[in-house]
């Protein structure tokens, strides 16, 4: 199975990339963003918008007041429309799943365009690869990859308005200034709103190169702006696919087999006689022999589907369908992924968590692939004064987005219209084209606000399923998964294990480090991350075992396990070395900076150290409050550096988290309050998964299928307080959806140790909490 790489280029070039973009950004070639300048007339599917008027009627002014709509709109580029009255519509290109890109990405456009945020309407763009770059939400890359194209699009439109005014007033463009949507020519005293110049500007050639703002000139970027959909959310307006409805729409629901099985026979006689039921049938999701891409999932090759009039009727009819399942044979697939074609094998059989544990324990002693080796680890371990070895494990996790999997599709003879909660539309459109037998251009995907994503919605199986069902029943269809279907469909966070070994010399210096990580069906080892580069003798190894339980990206894939393991281990290692856990890490980072081992180290030791220093200061690390167990952890992933401190006290065996202090380096912070919201969410979600998150299996069947069994963090387990502090610098912005999540697992484990006197190696921790008598 395949995951998205965390950064667009190779990891080792990241730092150059950041510096380069800083240097370039004062002037930018508009060619980098050329596709966004296609004129509106080139919109092949422009007319399609009309069929979705029901939702298009919901305009989203960014301020509190409703805006007067202009008589006429002028397109300056794909992202920007200006009305003759000066009202501005900004298209938000990326799908929104709660990370607030629908507010923060248009803020970047608006700042370079130099308009009043209160006069901005934000609209969600449809999936439109001919007009927008990379409409993908995931990997914490929205802001990172949008930064340059959005600034360029904003600055270019501004320059076109300046050029229009220069032409109309017959003055040099260089003498014209702008502020909050108004053009000024100081010497002649002339001024005009953008709306007055928009029609001429839209006709002018696109400048080859444009000036960008200096960072100190930003007026919107770096200020807190509220969610543009806030009012609609609190008033319950339809925003999600599950809320969508159209004339003649039918409801479809799946019946899913256990993992490792498929349909043998279906008795639908009782269900067909039930009220509202239109049809019951079995569908094949992917065509035979289809070469999958990284976001095609094949949890089940076929599914039984019930189609009817209303959700409740179909839910009931589903229960009346009797399906007999049969074992699948071993399956092998070719998957096109980053780094080329991969063979994925799914073994025959019904898997259980107890067996997974036993397989992993055995495999951990077997062969592994060497991922990185520095120095002579074997010799160093032999000469060590002290050796520490610890093994960490974590279970499968389900995403459990609050909006269950669903999708609207209307497929006719020659075209397909979808309204979908999907993080990665571009990958699934290819699959849809292959499955429906029509060209990609005839498939129109509208991007709904998603009721959560967390990686699950990078995978578009629900789009294919809805489309195939609609094609078969020849009607618009909304496919709806029940919570039970959603939790048991299977794009889970894999189950992992990792064994860490470290060698200390007689002075407590780290002389060798060895990580050997495995999992089903992938390992989580990042061989070039810290502490690689800080230790002379280093060995990273990985192994994996095949499975027919399907897995996928889950908030900070792999990091969400390995950070918890590694940072718990470093805590215990610091203790063994007799050092403060922050000092211990800082010493290693100093070594990695001054005299790095190897060339492929995937982090900047200075930025890593800066978050540790900031969290030490802000948490008042040296003077912890009395009666709390305090744990620290730090991690770098998805291009952002994070350090976190957790203060915990025990009520019996119940951990109460009093405070969390986080220090974050994500470069420029575009929307600070929204960034804090995202960070709080990552931290609290991480605490919940560390303490409670777990999905187990018995004979191919998930043992939990709804929230009465799957424990989610709730109000009373939420920390009393969470503080997020950002490192102030001028690096290009990086993402926040994922990076605060992984280290909290270790900060919780380390705080638990200090609060209970016991180390925790196996997630979820709440199952194992015991307080040592000495601590009571």
């Amino acid at each position, binding site marked *: 199975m395949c995951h998205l790489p965390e950064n667009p280029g190779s990891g080792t070039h990241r730092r150059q990339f950041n510096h380069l973009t800083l240097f370039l950004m004062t002037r930018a070639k508009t060619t980098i963003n050329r596709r966004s300048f296609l004129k509106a007339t080139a919109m092949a599917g422009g007319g399609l918008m009309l069929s979705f008027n029901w939702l298009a009627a919901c305009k989203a002014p960014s301020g509190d007041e409703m805006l007067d709509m202009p008589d006429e709109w002028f397109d300056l580029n794909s992202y920007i429309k200006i009305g003759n009255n000066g009202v501005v519509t900004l298209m938000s290109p990326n799908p929104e*799943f*709660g*990370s*607030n890109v629908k507010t923060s990405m248009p803020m970047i456009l608006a700042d370079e365009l130099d308009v009043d945020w209160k006069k901005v309407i934000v609209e969600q763009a449809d999936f439109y690869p001919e007009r927008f770059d990379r409409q993908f939400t995931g990997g914490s890359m929205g802001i990172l990859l949008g930064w340059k194209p959005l600034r360029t699009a904003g600055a270019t439109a501004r320059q076109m308005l300046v050029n229009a005014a220069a032409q109309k007033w017959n003055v040099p463009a260089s003498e014209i200034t702008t502020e909050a949507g108004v053009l000024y020519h100081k010497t002649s005293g002339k001024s005009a709103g953008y709306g007055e110049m928009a029609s001429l500007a839209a006709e002018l050639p696109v400048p080859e190169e444009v000036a960008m703002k200096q960072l100190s000139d930003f007026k919107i970027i770096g200020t*807190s702006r*509220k*969610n543009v*959909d*806030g*009012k609609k*959310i*609190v*008033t*319950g*307006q*339809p*925003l999600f696919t*599950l*809320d969508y*409805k159209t004339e003649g729409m039918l409801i479809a629901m799946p019946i899913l087999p256990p993992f490792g099985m498929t349909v043998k026979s279906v008795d639908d006689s009782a269900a067909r006689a039930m*009220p509202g039921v239109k049809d019951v049938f079995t569908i094949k999701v992917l065509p035979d022999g289809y070469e999958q891409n990284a976001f095609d999932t094949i949890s089940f090759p076929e599914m039984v589907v019930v189609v009817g009039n*209303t*959700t*409740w*009727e179909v*839910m009931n009819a589903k229960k009346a369908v009797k399906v007999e399942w049969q074992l699948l044979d071993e399956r092998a697939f070719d998957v096109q992924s980053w780094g080329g074609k991969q063979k994925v094998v799914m073994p025959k059989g019904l898997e259980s968590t107890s067996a997974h544990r036993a397989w992993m324990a055995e495999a951990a002693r077997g062969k592994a692939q060497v991922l990185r080796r520095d120095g002579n680890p074997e010799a160093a371990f032999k000469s060590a004064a002290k050796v520490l070895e610890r093994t960490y494990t974590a279970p499968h996790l389900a995403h*459990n*987005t*609050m*909006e*269950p999997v669903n999708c609207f599709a209307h497929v006719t003879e020659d075209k397909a219209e979808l309204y979908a909660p999907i993080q990665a539309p571009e990958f699934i459109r290819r699959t849809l084209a292959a499955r429906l037998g029509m060209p990609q251009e005839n498939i129109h995907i509208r991007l709904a*606000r*998603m*009721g*959560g*994503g967390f990686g699950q919605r990078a995978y578009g199986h629900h789009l294919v399923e809805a489309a195939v069902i609609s094609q078969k029943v020849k009607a618009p269809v909304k496919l709806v998964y*029940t*919570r039970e279907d959603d939790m048991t469909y299977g794009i889970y966070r894999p189950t992992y294990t990792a064994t860490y070994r470290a060698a200390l010399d007689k002075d407590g210096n780290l002389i060798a480090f060895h990580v050997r990580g495995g999992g089903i069906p992938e390992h989580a080892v990042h061989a070039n991350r810290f502490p690689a580069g800080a230790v002379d003798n280093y060995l990273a190894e990985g192994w994996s075992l095949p499975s027919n339980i399907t897995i996928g990206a889950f908030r900070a894939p792999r990091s969400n396990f390995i950070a918890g393991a590694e940072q718990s281990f470093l805590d215990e290692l610091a203790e063994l070395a007799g050092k403060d856990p922050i000092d211990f890490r800082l010493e290693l980072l100093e070594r990695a900076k001054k005299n790095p081992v190897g060339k492929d180290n995937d982090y900047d030791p200075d930025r890593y150290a800066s978050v540790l220093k900031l969290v030490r200061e802000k948490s008042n690390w040296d003077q912890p409050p009395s009666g709390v167990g305090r744990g620290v952890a730090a991690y770098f992933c998805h291009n952002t550096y994070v350090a976190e401190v957790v203060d915990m006290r025990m009520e019996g065996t119940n951990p109460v988290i009093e405070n969390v202090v986080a220090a974050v380096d994500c470069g420029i912070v575009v929307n600070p*309050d*929204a960034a804090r*919201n*995202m960070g*709080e*969410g*990552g*931290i*609290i*979600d991480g605490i*919940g998964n560390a303490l409670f998150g777990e999905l187990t299996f018995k004979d191919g069947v998930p043992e939990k299928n*709804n*929230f*009465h069994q799957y424990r*989610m*963090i*709730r*109000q*009373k387990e*939420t*920390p009393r307080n*969470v503080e997020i502090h950002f490192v102030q610098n001028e690096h290009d912005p990086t993402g926040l959806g994922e990076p605060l999540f992984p280290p909290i697992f270790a900060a919780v484990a380390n705080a638990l140790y200090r609060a209970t006197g016991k180390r925790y190696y196996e997630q979820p921790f709440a199952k194992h909490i015991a307080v040592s008598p000495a601590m009571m």
Partner: protein
Amino acid sequence: MATITLNVNGKKRVVEADPQTPLLWILRDHLDLVGTKYGCGIAQCGACTVHVDGVATRSCSLPVSQIGDKEVTTIEGLSQNGDHPVQKAWLEHDVAQCGYCQAGQIMTAAALLKRNPNPTDADIEDAMHGNICRCATYLRIRAAVRTAANSTI
């Protein structure tokens, strides 16, 4: 199938449906009031919370036949212009991330403040504990309920 008369958001509504249908699906599929959300179907997540005679109620587990002439209020009917103190506090604290669970959170909070206008922190946590927010905006939810309480007393 039966003809059922309901009082929803101050209006009389008549639907033809199986009397066992949970109120949630009557609201969403029959009355096009989709602000009330489906999350679990077993009264475990709170996304479907509405008021029945002013009391926070999980609409996914309430058969429509049991409502009779009780007043049903959904998020769409909580206030005329989205200006209920709880809605205003939610905007002030910019609570939402994905936003899916928030209508249920707001309805739970509004019912709490109606019966207990000056709740303690523990009262707020007790009342809100049944509502899951997968994005984990719990701190802001707590703060917004506190703000709404302060604005109404």
